[in-house]
């Protein structure tokens, strides 16, 4: 056998993920084609997806808020490097989308759009899976696509980059 110059040393964790109360509400919303967040009772920021607490105020976020699938691209990245772990073949665009009424950008794929047309401030909307395929998963939102609206001014999302 030839000389050994490298070895594969996989690090692998198998575990059962259990959704907490807030994530469970969000995922059950996904199964109904709804986007549910939570509002902080102190600073009034709306977290989508909710985590059950406000990281700034340190208090439970008990008020549920529904937001629409419309939002604004705050930042984006075009992925061109293939990898075994990607579920989407490159090239593709992933972005942070600040949903209208939310204070936390939402990770999303952008499709139905040329790569060089994606830009900060672009208005987009969620494209949902067909009703029969809606499930308690982020993948119920297949991707976001551009909508025919003027770009959002930088000032409206500059705090969310």
């Amino acid at each position, binding site marked *: 056998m030839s000389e050994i110059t490298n070895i594969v040393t*996989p690090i692998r964790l198998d575990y059962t*993920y259990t959704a907490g109360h807030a994530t469970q509400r969000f*995922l059950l919303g996904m199964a109904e084609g709804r986007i549910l967040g939570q509002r902080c009772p102190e600073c009034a920021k709306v977290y989508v997806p909710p985590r059950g607490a406000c990281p700034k105020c340190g208090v439970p976020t008990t008020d549920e808020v529904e937001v629409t699938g419309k939002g604004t691209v705050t930042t984006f990245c075009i992925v061109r490097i293939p990898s075994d772990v990607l579920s989407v073949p490159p090239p593709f665009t992933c972005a942070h989308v600040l949903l209208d009424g939310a204070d936390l950008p939402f990770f999303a794929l952008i499709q139905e759009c040329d790569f060089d047309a994606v830009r900060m401030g672009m208005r987009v909307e969620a494209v949902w899976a067909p009703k029969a395929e809606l499930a308690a998963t982020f993948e119920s939102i297949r991707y976001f696509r551009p909508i025919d609206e003027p770009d959002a001014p930088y000032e409206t999302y500059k705090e969310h980059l």
Partner: protein
Amino acid sequence: MNRMAETASGRLTAAHVLEYPYRRSVGPVMGAFFTGLTERRLLGVRARDGRVLVPPVEYDPESGESIGEMIEVGPGGVVTTWAWVEKPRAKHPLDRPFAWALVRLDGAGSAMLHAVDAGSAAAMRTGMRVRPRWKAEPEGNIHDIVCFEPERA
């Protein structure tokens, strides 16, 4: 993440795997050790104080100088300490009760961690002689040694 399933309590859960399939280059010293395994040879490196370190390292543990003189050791050795595993887990090297042990191979001045297949904890003792059980088709990694076993089983 896989699809969430609702448990009897109504709580959503999902099987999740986090995996980093690292491939790392091993350099000339570890490379020689792994290449030796493909030939069923156990190689250590001579440190500045004369001890042979197995598995080998690239730098002298005392002075930090580069070292690289490869010395063949073993294949037999002595258990210097051990811990019994009554219920092996999925990723353990053996699917029956075994010992994790430090094995100091003949001619070596340091001990190497590996599994010992002794059948029962009663068959284990510090100072016992063991020898490697080799995989049928060595590939050049530590799993080429399936485990160690008592020398006179």
